[in-house]
């Protein structure tokens, strides 16, 4: 039966080419626009670390002093608080992180020095965030403690400095200090660069840069403090002339992030209590003076709070779906016109014994066929749309790609949408009274 309806639908579509083309085009454009934006939206709002994001937490407190009070904690901690919490080792894994811009002196003569984005961190960083290594490994906790002159570099920097060869054991000169490479990362492109999201909520939705490549240089925190202290990028400072970039470990500045991995709810509650207790204790000895302002967000909450998905992308998605809705209304209208235009034929079929259900089914098959054809064209439009996005001057442009789920979703969505659009027109068509139509004939 379905095969016969399919045959009838094909015939009918061929008979009204113009109307069919209009419907297919409308669906294709709607699907193309919504699938393109949805691809970008999926890509940018996805979980950056699906296996673990529920177990990673970002403890915060208010270390600032002086006359000015805050109503939310700063995005980063001062060194003392971060170091105290980190050293307590109350979580299975914890890492301190700080941003710096350091200067690499290539060992190859003729290459000019350049600036690289550097992360000073601690050894748990790599296993905690599932960072993949191509060569070597992270530095050891012992080496970290004695501020060993060791470094982990990204595959990009390895390509630039060593032509992609295994550079473990070779030297890199950073800020004038000679550092031995202990590890080279494999291709790693977390999206967003979730481990260091600072101040994004103040950017007015302009967060595309968070989806760029991650850091190129990873230093053990003590080594970083030794050789790049003055290059650390603070979130803010609050002191009375105590801000000396050469003494960042004691400066009244927030510049260190702390991440902890907590496997279950009990561990989470325990750490939250530990954080509060630490805050109370520091207040009692007078190091912290402002009203208590502790907070511990999960990775997911933190990314939400920082509004990391670019506002432009969210807007485009809204627009695209409003657009798809318009295309649907359009299709409902055109299908209605098409089916009612065929009242005669339907009347004859009804008179010859076709049930209302049969007519309804036949019309729905026709609507579905239009949806499928529109979906196929919509796929081409999606590919074109994604190509257009890849040409845009945004940091995530190279990440956007057509993938299988999008294909399946596009076809599914267009089929579903056209069936939905077909329900009312098909119902109306199935109500055609046979006798009346025959009389007119």
């Amino acid at each position: 039966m379905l095969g016969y309806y399919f045959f009838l639908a094909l015939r009918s579509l061929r008979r009204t080419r113009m109307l069919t083309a209009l419907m297919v085009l409308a669906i294709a454009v709607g699907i193309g626009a919504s699938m393109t934006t949805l691809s970008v939206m999926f890509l940018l709002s996805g979980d950056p670390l699906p296996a673990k994001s529920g177990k990673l937490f970002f403890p915060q407190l208010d270390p600032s002093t002086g006359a000015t009070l805050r109503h939310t904690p700063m995005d980063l901690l001062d060194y003392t608080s971060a170091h105290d919490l980190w050293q307590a080792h109350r979580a299975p894994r914890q890492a301190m992180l700080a941003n710096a811009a350091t200067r690499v002196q290539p060992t190859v003569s003729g290459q000019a020095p350049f600036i690289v984005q550097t992360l000073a961190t601690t050894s748990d960083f790599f296993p905690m965030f599932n960072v993949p290594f191509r060569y070597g490994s992270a530095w050891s906790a012992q080496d970290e403690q004695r501020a060993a002159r060791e470094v982990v570099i990204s595959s990009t920097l390895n390509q630039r400095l060593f032509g992609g060869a295994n550079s473990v054991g070779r030297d890199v000169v950073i800020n004038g200090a000679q550092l031995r490479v202990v590890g080279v990362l494999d291709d790693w492109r977390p999206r967003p660069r979730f481990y260091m999201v600072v101040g994004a909520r103040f950017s007015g939705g302009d967060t595309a840069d968070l989806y760029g490549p991650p850091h190129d240089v990873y230093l053990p925190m003590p080594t970083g403090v030794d050789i790049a202290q003055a290059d650390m990028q603070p979130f803010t400072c609050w002191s009375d002339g105590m801000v000396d970039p050469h003494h960042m470990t004691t400066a009244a500045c927030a510049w260190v992030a702390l991440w902890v991995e907590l496997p279950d709810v009990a561990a989470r509650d325990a750490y939250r209590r530990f954080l509060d207790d630490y805050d109370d204790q520091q207040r009692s000895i007078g190091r912290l003076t402002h009203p208590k302002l502790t907070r511990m967000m999960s990775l997911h909450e933190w990314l939400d709070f920082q509004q990391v998905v670019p506002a432009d992308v969210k807007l485009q998605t809204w627009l695209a779906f409003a657009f798809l809705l318009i295309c649907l209304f359009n299709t409902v209208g055109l299908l209605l016109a098409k089916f009612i235009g065929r009242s005669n034929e339907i009347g004859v079929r009804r008179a010859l014994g076709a049930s209302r259900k049969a007519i309804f089914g036949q019309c729905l098959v026709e609507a579905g066929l239009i949806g499928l054809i529109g979906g196929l064209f919509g796929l081409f439009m999606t590919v074109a749309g994604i190509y257009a996005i890849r040409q845009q001057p945004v940091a995530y442009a190279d990440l956007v790609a057509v993938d299988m789920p999008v294909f399946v979703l596009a076809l599914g969505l267009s089929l579903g949408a056209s069936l939905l659009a077909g329900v009312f027109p098909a119902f109306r068509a199935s109500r055609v009274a046979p006798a009346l139509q025959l009389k007119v004939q």
Partner: protein
Amino acid sequence: MMQIAPILAALKKHRMATFLIAMEIALACAVLCNALYLVVERVRLSHVETGVDDDRLVAISLAGVDDAQAMDLGPRLRQKLGSLADVESVAVANATPFGPQAGEAGFRIDPNDPVYRIQAHFYLGDQGFAKTLGLRLVSGRWFTPDEYAPVEGFLPKASSLLVDADYAAKLWPGQNPLGKPVLVTNLTFRVVGVVARMVRPNPNPFAASNSFITPALAGKGMASVYLLRVAPGKAADVFARATAMITRDEPSVILDATASGPLTQLRDAYFANTRSMAIMMVGVIAALLLVSALGIVGLASFWVQQRRQQIGIRRAIGATRRDILHYFQLENFLIVGGGIVVGMVLAYVLSAVLMKQYELPLLPAYYLPYGALILWLLGQLAVLGPARRAAAVPPVVATRNI
């Protein structure tokens, strides 16, 4: 005009189809008005008034300057850049328009309220800053030579600042901003002058000129950004010579390529993303109008075909071609009009959602007539083909059975 009643009567027979077209137009109207607004806002942003002489300025930004170097690098480079041909003056600063922000900080304007709730960009500039940029003073005074102070942390230990005029009006509505306090960290500044305009380094739709200027001495903490005022038309030339000089004379410094160049070039690069977003929005608007037009063409063609006999009868009893044409045009005008009325309400609903989610300002009312006009024109254009076909129906059709 007398045709309206029969048109409405005829539409009653096609309630569903009429409703669908009207709803399509309503949705299109809501999306169109909001999308148009977003495009216009973006285009407006990319034409943001900077308050400085864009085409006369060249920015040189250095990366990785440490404090040990900065002490003499600042004054030395200022002198060297100033002695290049076609350079009229040089300023050392912490940031340049369309470069990275350098002095974003929270501050208070009420000494009795200890919590800060607002933030702005604090420019640091040396003695040549105002003259080099071409700033215009609207009230108060410029800094006096003794007010320039060395940088401690990220701000100079000074006590006076200049403020952007629009921002001053926002901070102290209806009051004279001169003498008002601005409290940052433990420093208290007083407003001594108001400049007509000083764009922030990274203007965005929510904040374009929330900026202060503080008097700072070149050297430690301020030796990375140099602004050059050049002779007209010489910006690219001066930039090439300046970079050549730096590579030759100062091999230890690294030029920050993304924040260096003629200011007009930095401006273009800064707005590249905004422009491409605007172009994309225009694409969406065009596709939207296309689809709506297709819907109208399809349905109108269907109606014409269905009413061939009635049209023939009307023609046979004396209606002219023009009458038939007008009938369909007026019918379309009424349907689109109905859609627009609903669409205006929808436009505000959508705008309210966007406002809540993305802190966009509410859709200004003057977009509604524009949206209505565009859709009416679109409707008329789309219905023209089917209506002309209707008008071409000969009266003899009336005598035939279908």
